[in-house]
């Protein structure tokens, strides 16, 4: 093959570039890991104490820290929620390390390496790869948005790394046949069943609820929530009169969407929205004077403290499914203690998001302690497997956790079957959410129907 002179020089250039690139790639440091100041107390690195706790293996090298990777939307439109979730994790890690770290590894510190999904599934997956390959974390946790959890956990599954999901609720996530994926929170099918129960209850008590409209954000979470709602509510005899979806990442107006809902005139409005779009929706509903008899949201944006702060009076009377509520403080003493410390440190109380991530961190920690009995992080593959096995076998009683659940136990799909939800309503008395359903745990009576906007 005769190459012209131009091609020859072209080839030389490519070789040079490749050589430079190779040298460059080989010497690239991994991305700096911005470990939070909370996780590693600056002054004292744990002194090398001879481990007296059970270590069946003979002379394992002493481990000073165990790294877990946490992927959250730290930038982008969900950044405030991400910051909230981060607080939950940080706080848990702080308490864990203060209590002696990972005791079965001689008090090794638990260290978090953060990954920023920027709210995008592809970025989340790239972060998962980075955390697994470059940072060599023993496990991953994340990622709030079901769409990001979907891709990030897929990467983890490919690399045989345990993935703990404390806060994504799309049912599809545990239907993939994964062996390394574990979810502590309940999922949307469970919640939707509870929603139907709740609306049935309202119907029985007050009557007049026949038609249902749905508005949802259109990624994995919102879409699967809407699907499940449609299925269960239709089966329960309600008529779905409108179904509207929008793209949360780019939406700037929900005018048309609310007009469409208003035109359908539903008795019940079901909402699956994140924070900014949730705020937008409520304000648009007010502007367009759209007030269905019942407005029921599906957690996420509606329980975010940023939402509560910004929405003010406009958020009154909205119901939401929740996983947790501050008024449970009276019911769960351990929770009150933790929340007091948390709010002293951060100035806000725990909410469904931060509490779930707090709990998730503890669950992962317990698994690491169990795993440390049979393996060491120095053998990464074995340790990750040990964590996975520990999670699969885990049984935690309800008094150990701050959530209103019956405990932690994962089924063969990785789903915590003891998780539950509650329904809360924002009260006009104090602008806070109060538990209203199930009636046994309610702290305030239900206010029905949703008063029209002018009458407030």
């Amino acid at each position, binding site marked *: 093959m005769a190459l012209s002179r131009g091609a020859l020089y072209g080839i030389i250039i490519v070789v040079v570039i490749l050589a430079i690139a190779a040298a460059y790639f080989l010497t690239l440091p991994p991305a700096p890991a911005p470990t939070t100041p909370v996780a590693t107390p600056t002054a004292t690195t744990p002194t090398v104490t001879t481990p007296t706790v059970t270590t069946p293996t003979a002379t394992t090298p002493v481990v000073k820290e165990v790294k877990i990777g946490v992927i959250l939307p730290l930038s982008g439109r969900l950044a405030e929620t991400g910051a909230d979730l981060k607080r939950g994790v940080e706080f848990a890690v702080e308490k864990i390390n203060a209590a002696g770290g990972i005791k079965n590894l001689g008090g090794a510190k638990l260290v978090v390496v953060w990954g920023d999904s920027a709210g995008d599934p592809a970025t989340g997956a790239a972060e998962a790869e980075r955390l697994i390959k470059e940072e060599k974390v023993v496990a991953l946790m994340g990622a709030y948005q079901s769409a990001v959890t979907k891709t990030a956990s897929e990467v983890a599954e490919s690399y045989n790394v345990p993935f703990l999901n404390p806060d994504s609720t799309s049912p599809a996530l545990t239907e993939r046949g994964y062996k390394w994926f574990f979810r502590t929170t309940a999922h949307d099918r469970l919640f939707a069943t509870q929603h139907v129960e709740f609306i049935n209850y309202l119907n029985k008590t007050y009557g007049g609820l026949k038609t249902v409209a749905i508005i949802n954000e259109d990624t994995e979470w919102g879409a699967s929530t809407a699907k499940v709602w449609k299925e269960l509510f239709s089966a329960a005899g309600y008529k779905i009169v409108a179904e509207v979806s929008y793209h949360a990442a780019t939406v700037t107006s929900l005018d048309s969407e609310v007009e*469409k809902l208003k035109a359908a005139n539903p008795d019940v409005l079901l909402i699956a929205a994140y924070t900014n779009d949730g705020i937008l929706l409520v304000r648009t509903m007010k502007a367009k004077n759209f007030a269905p008899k019942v407005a029921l949201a599906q957690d996420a944006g509606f329980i975010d403290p940023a939402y509560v702060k910004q929405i003010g009076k406009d958020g009154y009377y909205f119901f939401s499914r929740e996983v947790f509520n501050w008024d449970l403080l009276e019911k769960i003493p351990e929770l009150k203690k933790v929340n007091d410390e948390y709010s002293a440190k951060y100035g806000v109380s725990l909410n469904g998001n931060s509490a779930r991530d707090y709990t998730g961190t503890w669950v992962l920690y317990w698994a690491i302690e169990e795993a440390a009995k049979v393996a060491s992080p120095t053998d990464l593959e074995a340790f990750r497997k040990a964590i996975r096995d520990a999670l699969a076998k885990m049984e935690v009683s309800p008094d150990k956790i701050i959530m209103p659940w019956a405990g932690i136990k994962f089924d063969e799909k990785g789903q915590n079957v003891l998780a539950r939800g509650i329904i809360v309503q924002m009260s006009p008395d104090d602008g806070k959410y109060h538990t209203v359903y199930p009636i046994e745990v309610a702290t305030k009576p239900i206010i029905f129907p949703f008063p029209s906007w002018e009458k407030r």
Partner: protein
Amino acid sequence: MVIELGSIIGAFVSGLVIGSIYALVSLGLAIIWGVMNVINFAQADFMALGAFIGFLLLESLGIDPLISLILIFGIVFSIGVLTQRVAIEPILKAPVLSQITTTFAILLIIRYGLEVFMGPYTRVVEVPYRDLFIRFGSISVSVPQLISLAVSLIVAFLLYLFMSRTFLGAALKATAQDMLAAQLHGIDIKYMYRLAFGLGVGISAIGGVLLSLFYPIYPEMGAFFCMIAFISVVLGGFGSIFGAYLGGIIIGLVETISALFISPSLKTLAAFVVFILILLFRPKGMFGR
């Protein structure tokens, strides 16, 4: 499902309001295009720039964006002139590709410069009248939306006066119509170009400020408005500045009406379909030369 009259009127008003914003951005684009024959891909990002400057002025100095509107126009106008001198002038004689890529580069620099500077967060311009609205019957119109519609119309009118009554405006028109002839009459083309560009992006910035009164703003918002502006200009017809304005209003209406009757998620699609149809069957648009 019967659609109430109230909903239709509501959609009509929404369309008019958002259309008036589109109209301003398109107006600016049409001026630049008409006078310089340059497609400013960064047009919508100057809009975002205006919105954020307004936001910053409010946050730091407490000045309502409506009051600082003229100042913001001045700032963005100057930035526009600077951009024109640094980036556009050198490539005016270059092949079209260079123009395209240069304005695209400006798009990236403004949009992501804004993002790096302000952070990737969504902001809300908290003016006291933001949540006010007027109601007649079951129709409610938000006050900031009405204000922005009014201001948009005023700006268009002022521009009309400028173009038809002032010497500068006439010179601008002349340059747009026939550059050579204008030059022969002693008009300084370079000066006209700078004026056109500054004016074009300044008007777009005004649109951004108005928008921020009732929409949340974020640095990447230009991405959405960019294409809409082009569609409006094409609809209006190349060479017709006020055709572009009208085009913007029409596109706004097309969006909101189709959202009501078809589906909200497809409303943008409707606008794009209009675009392709025009390009194919009536590339002159409504009033084009």
